[in-house]
C-alpha cells in the first residue's frame, strides 16, 4: 500500500519529476567529470597501453650480489610491484638492441651494461604519489644509476600544486552538488506533497503515524536518486569518452593518458545521488510533523 502511495506521489508531477531528474543528472555528471580529472591527476593506470606497466631500475655494473639483492628486496617490499626480477645480461642486451639497434652492440660490450631489475606494476590504478615515493627511495640507493617508471613520473613535479587545487575544487563542487540535488528532490517532494495534500490530511485525520506519511516520501526520493544515478552513469561515461579528453589538456599535462573514473569515485557519485535524495526527503519532515487540520 505504501509503494502504491509513493507511486501516486511520483506520478502526480511527471514534468517536474523529469526536469528534476535531468537537473540532478546534469550536476552529478559535472561532479563526476571533475572527480575524473582529480583521479587522473592523482592516479596512474598501470594496465593501459600508453603508460608503461613496469618499473625498471638500473644498477652500476660490477655491484656486489648482496647489494643487488638489497635493491630487489626494496622493490619486493612495495605493494605497488609484483614479479620483481633481475634481468639477465643477455636478455637486457637483446632488449637494448631491439630498442636502439645494431649501433649499441657495436658501441658497448655486454659486460659494460648496467644491471637491470624490473618489476610489474600491480594491475589497476596506482596512486601517483606512492609511485613517486618508491622511485625516490630507489634513487637514493648508492648503487642505483636510474629508475624508469615511464610517463607516470612525468607529471610528478606539477602534481602537488595542481592536485591540491583540484582536490579543493572537487570538495567545493561536492558540497554544491550535494546541496543542489537535495534541494531539487526536496522541492519535488514538497510539490507532490502539496498535490496530494487532501489525501495526506485525510490519512493524518484517520490516525496515520509519521511512518505512514514519511515512508512514501522516502521511497519517492529513493526512486529519484536511483533514476538520477542510472542516468548519471550513462552521461558520465559519455563525458569521459568524448568530452573530458578534449578538455583534460587544459588542466592536465599534454599527452596525458586519460582513463576512466576510479571505482571508488563511481560509488562516490552514486552515493551523492542517493544520499542527497534521501536528505531531500528528510528536509520535508516538517510537513510530516505538521498537525492534521481538517475543515
Amino acid at each position, binding site marked *: 500500500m505504501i509503494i502504491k502511495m509513493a507511486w501516486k506521489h511520483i506520478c502526480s508531477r511527471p514534468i517536474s519529476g523529469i526536469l528534476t531528474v535531468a537537473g540532478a543528472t546534469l550536476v552529478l555528471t559535472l561532479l563526476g567529470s571533475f572527480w575524473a580529472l582529480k583521479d587522473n591527476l592523482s592516479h596512474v593506470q598501470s594496465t593501459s597501453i600508453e603508460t608503461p606497466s613496469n618499473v625498471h631500475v638500473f644498477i652500476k655494473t660490477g655491484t656486489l650480489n648482496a647489494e643487488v639483492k638489497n635493491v630487489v628486496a626494496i622493490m619486493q617490499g612495495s605493494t605497488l610491484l609484483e614479479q620483481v626480477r633481475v634481468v639477465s645480461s643477455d636478455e637486457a642486451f637483446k632488449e637494448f638492441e631491439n630498442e636502439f639497434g645494431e649501433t649499441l652492440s657495436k658501441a658497448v660490450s655486454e659486460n659494460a651494461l648496467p644491471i637491470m631489475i624490473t618489476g610489474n606494476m600491480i594491475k589497476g590504478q596506482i596512486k601517483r604519489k606512492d609511485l613517486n615515493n618508491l622511485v625516490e627511495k630507489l634513487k637514493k640507493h648508492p648503487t642505483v644509476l636510474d629508475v624508469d617508471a615511464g610517463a607516470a613520473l612525468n607529471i610528478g613535479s606539477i602534481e602537488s600544486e595542481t592536485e591540491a587545487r583540484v582536490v579543493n575544487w572537487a570538495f567545493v563542487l561536492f558540497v554544491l552538488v550535494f546541496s543542489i540535488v537535495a534541494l531539487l528532490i526536496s522541492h519535488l517532494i514538497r510539490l507532490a506533497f502539496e498535490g496530494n495534500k487532501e489525501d495526506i490530511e*485525510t490519512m493524518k485525520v484517520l*490516525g496515520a*503515524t509519521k511512518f505512514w506519511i514519511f515512508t512514501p516520501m522516502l521511497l519517492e526520493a529513493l526512486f529519484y536518486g536511483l533514476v538520477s544515478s542510472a542516468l548519471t552513469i550513462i552521461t558520465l561515461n559519455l563525458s569521459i569518452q568524448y568530452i573530458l579528453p578534449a578538455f583534460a589538456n587544459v588542466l592536465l599535462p599534454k599527452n596525458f593518458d586519460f582513463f576512466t573514473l576510479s571505482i571508488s569515485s563511481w560509488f562516490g557519485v552514486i552515493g551523492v545521488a542517493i544520499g542527497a535524495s534521501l536528505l531531500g526527503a528528510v528536509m520535508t519532515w516538517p510537513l510530516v510533523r505538521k498537525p492534521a487540520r481538517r475543515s
Partner: protein
Amino acid sequence: MRNYSNPFVVEMRDVDRDFDLGPGQAGKSAGPVKLHALARVSLKLSHGEFVFLTGPSGAGKSTLLRIIMGLDNPSSGEVITLGKNLNQMSETKRRQLRQEIGLVFQDHKLLPTLNVFENVELPLSFRGLATKERNRRVEEMLEVVQMKDHMFSPVHVLSAGERQRIAIARALVTCPSLIIADEPTGNLDPKSARGLVRLLRELKGHGTTVLIATHDMGLVRDFGGRILELVGGTLPSQRNKIAQHNAYKIPRFWRTAEKS
C-alpha cells in the same frame, strides 16, 4: 478492547473556542475581532449512547467535533476523549487516539489512489494488525455494508451512496468505542440516509458511542436518542447573551426604507 474504567467516552468542561478574524473596523489598536465559535460548552457522553448534534450552520458543530477528535485545540477548558486529556497531548498521541475513533465525513474522504478494499483496510494497517486478520475483518465489513462485490473497484467509479457505505465500513472496521459522523447523510437520498443511521444505531447495543452531527431534523425525530442542539456556540443549558448576539437581524436600512 473497550476501556470502561472511565464512565464517559467524551467529557468537555467549559470549553471555549475563539477564532481571530484580524483587525476590525476600529483598526489594529482596538485589537483583533474574535469569533466565539464555542462558548463554555460542557458535555458528557457515556458508553453506548446514541447522540444527535444539531444546530444551524455556523453554530459550531464541526468545531466541537474537531475538538473532540483532537484536530483543534480549545481556547480554554478541558477535553477528555476516551479517557485521555487532549490538552496535554502531543500530535503523535493525538493521531494514535484517532485510530481508536471511527470517523465519517459528509464527503467520504476516501483515498482515490486506493481501491475499496484498501480504503477499508487503511485504519487497520495504521494499527499494525496482521494481514490475515485485516483481510478477515475487511471482507466481513464489506459484506455488512453490501459492498463485497465491489471489493477491488476503484472508489471513483462508485456512487455517492456507495462511497458513504465504504466510509462507514472504514469507520467500523476497527471496532471503535466512539464513532463521530459529521453530516454523514448530507449527500444521500432519504432511504440510504435512514439505512445508514439505522446501522449506526445498532452499534449502541455493542457499547459504542455514536455522535452524529446533522441538519436533518427528520432523521433526528425518527431515530430519537439524545439530542444536543448547538446554537451560537452554546448548548441549551448554557445558552446566554452571546447566542442572541449572533442571531440574524434585519438590517437598519430596511427600517429606514419602510418609513420613507
